[in-house]
């Protein structure tokens, strides 16, 4: 498993290719790519900045991935999350999970994203025509994370 927090952009296709290369037991790769939208809550976003808590962020992501590995029969997981200034259409986050069959890969990938959204210390600040504003946590993200408790 690999977790990376970086300012640099990443090559989604190359990352997925390397993630599965030479592993003929893998039948399924589920992945998620999060992108900067130009509109959030009805305000035009020109730029955003992602702040994080160095050290704790990596630790939290590793714990989330370890928990996914304990819950589902998956081979591997990759998480890359960017920090620093980002613009619309920029890549923010990549989560990929490999497994023999698709059900496990889908579930673990969505689980990692839901937990990342509520447990990994990242904060978004958006620049809009009305000025900078810190993004509020979404109640739907808490709900998305909570539903995994029931399973």
């Amino acid at each position, binding site marked *: 498993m690999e977790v990376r927090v970086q300012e640099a952009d990443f090559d989604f296709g190359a990352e997925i290719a390397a993630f599965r290369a030479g592993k003929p037991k893998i039948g399924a790769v589920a992945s998620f790519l*999060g992108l900067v939208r130009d509109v959030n809550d009805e305000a035009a976003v020109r730029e955003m900045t*992602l*702040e*994080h*808590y160095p*050290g*704790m962020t990596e*630790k939290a992501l590793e714990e989330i991935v370890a928990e996914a590995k304990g819950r589902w029969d998956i081979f591997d997981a990759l998480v890359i*999350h960017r920090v620093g200034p980002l613009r619309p259409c920029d890549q*923010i*986050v990549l989560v990929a999970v490999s497994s023999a069959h698709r059900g496990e890969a889908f579930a673990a990938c969505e689980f990692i*994203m839901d937990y*990342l*959204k*509520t*447990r*990994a*210390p*990242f*904060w*978004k*600040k958006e620049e809009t025509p009305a000025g900078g504003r*810190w*993004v*509020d*946590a*979404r109640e739907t993200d808490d709900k998305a994370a909570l539903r995994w408790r029931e399973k």
Partner: protein
Amino acid sequence: MITVLYFARLRESLGTDREQLAPPPGVATVGQLADWLRDRGGNWTTELAADKPVRVAVNQEMASPDTLLPDGAEVAFFPPVTGG
């Protein structure tokens, strides 16, 4: 001595990202530390008000008001996270 870190909205509002503190006797938990900092007044009082959704980590693990503060602890205050 403990190290206290502030992130995101709290960092901006409090005007600092990090400070070294020697809390007085009686400040042994996260909740007591927040009370003590709140007594500084101004933005400290409003940002750390009980009804604000402030999160706290002790040594990079999520903590609750009754989490104890080990000597040398790294304590971080921050808003609910919004990554991804």
